[in-house]
């Protein structure tokens, strides 16, 4: 029976998916009622389901157990990571209320896919076996392929979905290939069995085949995270997908894939650390370089945010170099701040529309924010604070996140890459501050008229703003959670 206790929130979400699917398909094809559009109805139902599943996973006793024939694990990390993912999804849902109605994405299946994606991400965090990793990552990726191309009338969206599908399927093939090499060489697939198998292995004596298998799997994970040099899909996919879906892609999967990456690198392959440290170093170098210089040339919001998120992934991996408790705690702290910042900036980007007769337009280009300060000074201030946090300027939360990451990287004497990260941070500051200059000191030909944001997304924007601005008063609030989350990865 403890098998079911470990996946109780996921089982709850699965039952709800079945019920909602039947409800949706019966009523939306019911000619007597006039084929009603159920999208808004589903929106609120999914919000209720997510809040209940948050309550369900919050009130569970956090156990440490292996379940389902050692395929899934529950420990402190999964307990808190599930809560963070459910909260982030609730936040995302609140800010994408109005957008889907305005864009006329009326499929009720969209919400079912969102619930399935959340269930997949809750499973990813708990995966503890090479097979479970593949199944759960493939589950989540398939749903994301559909979500990227959900807007059937837009060629952009279809192209984004197709690109994501081909590249994502290829990377899943890499994952399987690496897993099969490791299985063929060791005969084990469970991550804890593999870590016991590798304990006490001599550094110079590691057979090369194992490293090849390990590299294939690592490449697949880095692809899913959009780390350079495997980042090429993310600007195109982020740009083509509808904005709500881009927000979903930016905010949620990173934490889930990082959970697996921690277990993989720091628990199973900890004895290979001298090998993967150099690989991760190169990936960090390229990510920060490409993220910084790629965002210079962008003129559209979505691609800008994609390159900025590649930059952030570079910082995530920087804290992973040390491989100890401080490192993991810094990554998780940065992750939480990243989720809050992304919620804030997408609350701005998704809902602010400017009105040019006779239609209202989305903010697509970066120069669309020129002169925002004259139209709506408080919104300009909010955007400024969020941009400063992304740039890493004190006393916003982004600064503290970067400080912890750099401190834990310096502990392993990785001075070169830390200096490089700081220098690139200064360079990145330039284009964030250029945006602030555009907001405050530039003006477009006509003053822009902005439609007021709806209440729920202004709630998310406000919460994100307060967290970013006033985190420095009590950092311990979040850092103690990240410390508890990183305890299971100790040896």
């Amino acid at each position, binding site marked *: 029976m403890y098998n079911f206790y470990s996946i109780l929130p996921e089982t709850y979400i699965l039952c709800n998916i*079945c019920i909602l*699917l*039947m409800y949706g*398909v*019966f009523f939306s*094809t019911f000619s007597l009622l006039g084929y009603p559009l159920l999208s808004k109805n589903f929106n609120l139902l999914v919000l209720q389901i997510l809040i209940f599943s948050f309550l369900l996973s919050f009130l569970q006793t956090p156990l440490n157990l292996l379940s389902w024939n050692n395929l899934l694990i529950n420990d402190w990390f999964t307990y808190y990571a599930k809560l963070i993912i459910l909260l982030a999804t609730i936040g995302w849902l609140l800010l994408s209320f109005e957008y889907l109605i305005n864009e006329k994405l009326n499929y009720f299946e969209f919400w079912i896919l969102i619930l399935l994606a959340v269930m997949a991400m809750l499973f990813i965090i708990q995966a503890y076996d090479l097979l479970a990793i593949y199944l759960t990552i493939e589950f989540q990726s398939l749903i994301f392929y559909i979500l990227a191309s959900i807007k059937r009338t837009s060629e952009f969206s279809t192209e984004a979905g197709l690109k994501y599908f081909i590249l994502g399927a290829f990377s899943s093939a890499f994952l399987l290939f690496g897993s099969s090499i490791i299985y063929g060489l060791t005969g084990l697939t469970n991550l804890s069995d593999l870590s016991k198998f590798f304990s006490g292995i001599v550094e110079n004596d590691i057979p090369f085949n194992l490293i090849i298998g390990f590299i294939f799997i690592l490449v697949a994970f880095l692809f899913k995270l959009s780390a350079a040099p495997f980042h090429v899909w993310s600007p195109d996919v982020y740009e083509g997908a509808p904005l709500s879906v881009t927000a979903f892609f930016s905010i949620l999967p990173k934490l889930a894939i990082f959970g697996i990456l921690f277990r993989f690198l720091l628990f199973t392959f900890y004895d290979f650390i001298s090998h993967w440290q150099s690989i991760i170093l190169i990936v960090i170098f390229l990510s920060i370089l490409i993220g910084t210089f790629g965002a210079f040339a962008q003129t559209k919001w979505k691609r800008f945010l994609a390159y900025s998120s590649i930059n952030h992934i570079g910082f995530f991996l920087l804290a992973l170099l040390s491989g100890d408790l401080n490192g993991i705690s810094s990554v998780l702290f940065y992750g939480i701040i990243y989720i809050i910042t992304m919620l804030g900036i997408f609350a701005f980007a998704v809902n602010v529309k400017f009105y040019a007769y006779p239609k209202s337009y989305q903010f697509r280009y970066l120069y669309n924010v020129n002169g925002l300060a004259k139209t709506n000074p408080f919104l300009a201030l909010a955007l400024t604070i969020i941009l400063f946090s992304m740039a890493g300027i004190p006393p916003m939360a982004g600064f503290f996140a970067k400080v912890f990451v750099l401190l834990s990287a310096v502990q392993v004497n990785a001075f070169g890459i830390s200096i490089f990260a700081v220098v690139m941070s200064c360079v990145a500051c330039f284009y964030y501050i250029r945006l602030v200059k555009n907001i405050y000191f530039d003006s477009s030909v006509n003053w822009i008229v902005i439609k007021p944001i709806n209440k729920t997304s202004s709630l998310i924007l406000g919460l994100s703003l307060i967290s970013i601005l006033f985190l420095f008063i009590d950092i311990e609030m979040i850092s103690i959670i990240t410390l508890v989350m990183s305890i299971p990865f100790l040896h």
Partner: protein
Amino acid sequence: MKLIFTEYSIILIFLVISFILSVAIFSLSYFLIPQKADQEKVSAYECGFNPFDDARATFDVRFYLVAILFLIFDLEISFLFPWSLVLGNIPLFGFWSMIIFLFILTIGFIYEWYKGALEWE
């Protein structure tokens, strides 16, 4: 760890001979034939008549849908086979696991039925 596996040599010979054979058949027929293209020779063949219409039509997505649905339900059947063989030996938990699996697939089936994917106009 040796570099050359001599027990697979026969597979290499097979590959080389099949490659040579197919290249020979293809290239000989292309290079040794006199090709004098004529208006009538390269036109589309429709039993000696002039072609009525262009042979290319838009690909009907119903064929693709049928193929995907076949794949899903065929895999469901292939999961049913081993379960039905050992059903006598596994405890009640095994029975209910398969019932849950079939139930989820039935929900998918009802969904596609009501969406009209089974209509073949």
